[in-house]
């Protein structure tokens, strides 16, 4: 366990000045700033809405784009960057010649990739809330302070995170197999487009397609939440696409370990 934690610390040390780490912070910051600016400038269009509706309009602007395209693209980039550090330096041999258990080196990289996505989504939820209250402070026509969306927003992002575990794991394996960004990005992008089509078509077994799972998860939440104000606003976190996502994540994690053992000696 100690070797795993040391390896994890090393992952942070190696990536702390790279775009793979900073993208997890800058992406939510920049997107939040841009969308908040749009809402701030057009505040009159939201003036007639209730606080709850304003929250849904505001957070929906993020979640729609995140679930379909932005999150998979971010995951593709981050997983590639983490493994590419080792490919570029031809470091696998040296890492596995150190007195560290091989699994700890591998699993720390995987966990770090998962952590970056978790960090990014947590920051998204936090920045959305911060931006909403900030807008409310400067423009009283916003009614964000009349409805507490915090818990729901974090739960939504948690669901999005769990639904993206399968994509993280698969992209992680692709980036172990290929040191070429075009291959990882190309395949990831094609699968993302395929996922969007599957989710939009509403195919019965779409929940089993990894790249469709975040979007399907978000679609399910939209259908589940009643926004007439008469019921408690909530949704089920662990739906079948989430279970499948976790199962795929586990299988990809295990297969990645065998790939890396071979990769270390070539």
């Amino acid at each position, binding site marked *: 366990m100690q070797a795993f934690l*040391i390896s994890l610390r090393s992952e942070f*040390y190696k990536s702390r000045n790279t775009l793979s780490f900073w993208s997890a912070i800058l992406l939510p910051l920049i997107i939040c700033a841009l969308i908040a600016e749009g809402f701030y400038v057009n505040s009159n269009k939201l003036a007639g809405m209730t606080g709850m509706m304003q929250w849904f309009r505001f957070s929906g602007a993020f979640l729609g784009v995140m679930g379909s395209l932005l999150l998979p693209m971010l995951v593709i980039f981050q997983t590639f960057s983490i493994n590419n550090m080792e490919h570029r330096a031809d*470091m696998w*041999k*040296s890492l596995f*010649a*150190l*007195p560290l258990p091989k699994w700890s080196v591998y699993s720390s990289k995987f966990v770090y990739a998962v952590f970056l996505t978790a960090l990014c989504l947590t920051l998204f939820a936090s920045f959305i809330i911060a931006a909403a209250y900030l807008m409310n402070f400067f423009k009283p026509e916003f009614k964000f302070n009349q409805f507490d969306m915090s818990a729901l927003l974090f739960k939504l992002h948690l669901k999005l995170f769990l639904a993206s575990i399968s994509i993280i794991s698969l992209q992680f394996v692709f980036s172990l197999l290929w040191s070429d960004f075009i291959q990882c990005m190309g395949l990831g992008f094609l699968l993302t487009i395929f996922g969007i089509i599957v989710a939009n078509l509403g195919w019965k077994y779409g929940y089993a397609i990894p790249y469709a799972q975040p979007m399907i998860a978000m679609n399910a939440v939209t259908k589940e939440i009643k926004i007439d104000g008469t019921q408690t606003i909530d949704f089920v976190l662990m739906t079948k696409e989430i279970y499948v996502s976790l199962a795929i994540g586990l299988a990809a994690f295990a297969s990645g370990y065998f790939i890396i053992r071979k990769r270390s000696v070539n």
Partner: protein
Amino acid sequence: MPNEFIIETRKLSYSFASQKVLNEVSLQVPSGSIYGFLGPNGAGKTTTIKILLNLLRSDKNNVLLFGEEINKNRLKILSRIGALVEQPAIYSHLTGRENLNNRAMLLGIPKKRIDVVQNITGIDDYAGKKAGKYSLGMKQRLGIALALLPDPELLLLDEPTNGLDPNGIIEIRKLLQKLTSEGKTVFVSSHILSEVEKMATHVGIINHGKLLFQGSIAHLHDISINTISIEVNNVVDAANMLLNKGYTADIKNESIILPYSSQREMSCINKLLVDSGFSVFGLSRPKNDLETMFLNITKN
């Protein structure tokens, strides 16, 4: 009782698919030696080093380091080894110092040790520069610094003087000799034979996966001195006389060259020349340089 051999392989064989790359290699690397591992490209040197680091596995449990089998004691053994495999593996987006910091973090080594290895490998002046901007020689020094960081008992170095200028090569040679004087063992593969000759105490010569020679440099010289060189006053007549008496004599650089068989025969040849009226000025067994010996051994 301390182990006589730091590295010992017992009839080690290894194949990639159907291609046999190592064929019953029995290495014996004495403690405190600088062992030069020589062989042409594709001979099996890097494969051997990878097996010694357990990057490749020998399923027969016939690889022993520090007297212990590597498959069963991987972490314990690796914690006593510093290695440089093929080209130095360095994160180009980090500085030299950060590369060392990262390795020290992984190995739980105090930061003051980083200052020590920076100093002994001579990378102090550019430790703050991004490693991606290093020359090949600088990278090589950083690679050696990374290998030295855990203060290992055994250093496995694959072509450590690659890319170094003559001064750098001399410094590394002195460093390795200093390390062995402190009781450490160095296993170094190299294709620069003159360099190995200057620093190695023992050599192993491998070709086509077979260990063709193994022993001390003195032993290598001993077995490969297989000619007699004779200096006489009339070289051509003396050579003809020896040919007429059934010897395989040749003339090279104003000397007669004959195959060596025994000291007794050397004495007989000397007597024969003197009795035939020739003045013998010198009778010797010329030493071959390592390159000649290497070529002779790998050719055969």
